């Protein structure tokens, strides 16, 4: 069918936001947060690699993480965990045939809970 297009173009076609329904956006959010969290895992391992350069190097790095830019990054990780995790529960449920006709409502509920949790985390991280 769509075999004519080249591999690279095809590989990114899943992210085509044109004409998507709510659950289609759920799919895109799930995949984007998955890619983001995988990227973060590598970043995390690189940061831990600083330990190999001694305690001073690691302490210096930790000081730099107090900047707002890092905090925004950390909040992004928290947001990705909530959105991916809560949406993941919905996907597991529907994959076992549970509440499939209600998947849209479950998605809305999961996202509302996720957003509330992100706001609470954000307030605690930035305001204290």
């Amino acid at each position: 069918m769509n075999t004519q297009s080249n591999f690279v173009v095809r590989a990114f076609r899943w992210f085509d936001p044109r004409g998507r329904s709510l659950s289609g956006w759920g799919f895109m959010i799930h995949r984007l947060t998955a890619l983001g969290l995988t990227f973060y895992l590598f970043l995390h391992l690189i940061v831990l690699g600083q330990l190999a350069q001694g305690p001073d190097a690691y302490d210096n790095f930790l000081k730099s993480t107090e900047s707002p830019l890092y905090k925004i990054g950390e909040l992004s990780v928290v947001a990705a965990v909530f959105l991916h995790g809560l949406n993941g529960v919905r996907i597991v449920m529907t994959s076992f045939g549970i509440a499939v006709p209600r998947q849209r409502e479950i998605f809305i509920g999961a996202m509302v809970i996720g957003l509330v949790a992100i706001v609470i985390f954000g307030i605690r991280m930035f305001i204290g």
Partner: protein
Amino acid sequence: MVEKWNITVKFYRQKQGEKPHDQEIKMDVNPDENVIDLVERAWALHDRTLVFAHACHHSTCGACGMRVNEREKLACITPVRSVVANGGTLKVAPLRNFPVISDLVVDMGELYRRMDLVGHQPVDSDREEAIQPEFRPAGPAEPNEDFMRLSDCIECGLCMSACPVFSSTPDYLGPAVLAGAHQAGLEKNPLLFKLIDSATGVWRCHSAFECTAVCPSNVDPGWRIMELRRKVIGDRVKTLFNPRKPAEVGK
């Protein structure tokens, strides 16, 4: 008095070997007519080279599947009022994920081959399974030709176009084919288990449910794929305690 709107319709135009482009046509329309009426009028009055497919005009043939303002629709049952406002722009484009033959017509041959592969029947004769209980006529319980009906799936391809996974993975059987397998009945054809219980079968679906959102015929492919998964898991558990005999495995 009939209401009149003036809208701009952007038609996707592409002949084989050419780059696609949009053709804009300003049209006076009745907001209660359907999009297919505009396409037919554009062909009849503005440009006879516009290629599109249509047949029944009442969502039974599935021929006029296209993207209306990027969303997969059957043009014959999509009122203009539901997709554009007076003075607005309406975009009409061919389905995604299929090769464009010309303008709004795509090659769906591979879909039909796959539907044949899973044994999907455009007409159901097994009334016990095909007809919902409340619509079953009184009479003998055996399948009866008098009770034959059109299958829910009209093979319009909207779900295949909307599926983001199929966009990236052409080997994926796709929602229409998996729904077809479900409608054909795994119990009747155990070989289907092998086909759908694979990396290109039910496990490739990533629960975007776009198929269900665009299906004009209430087939609900998303639900059927999840039902197939449930059956596959059930079959695996069953064979765990009651392994198939070698002769059965070879079948």
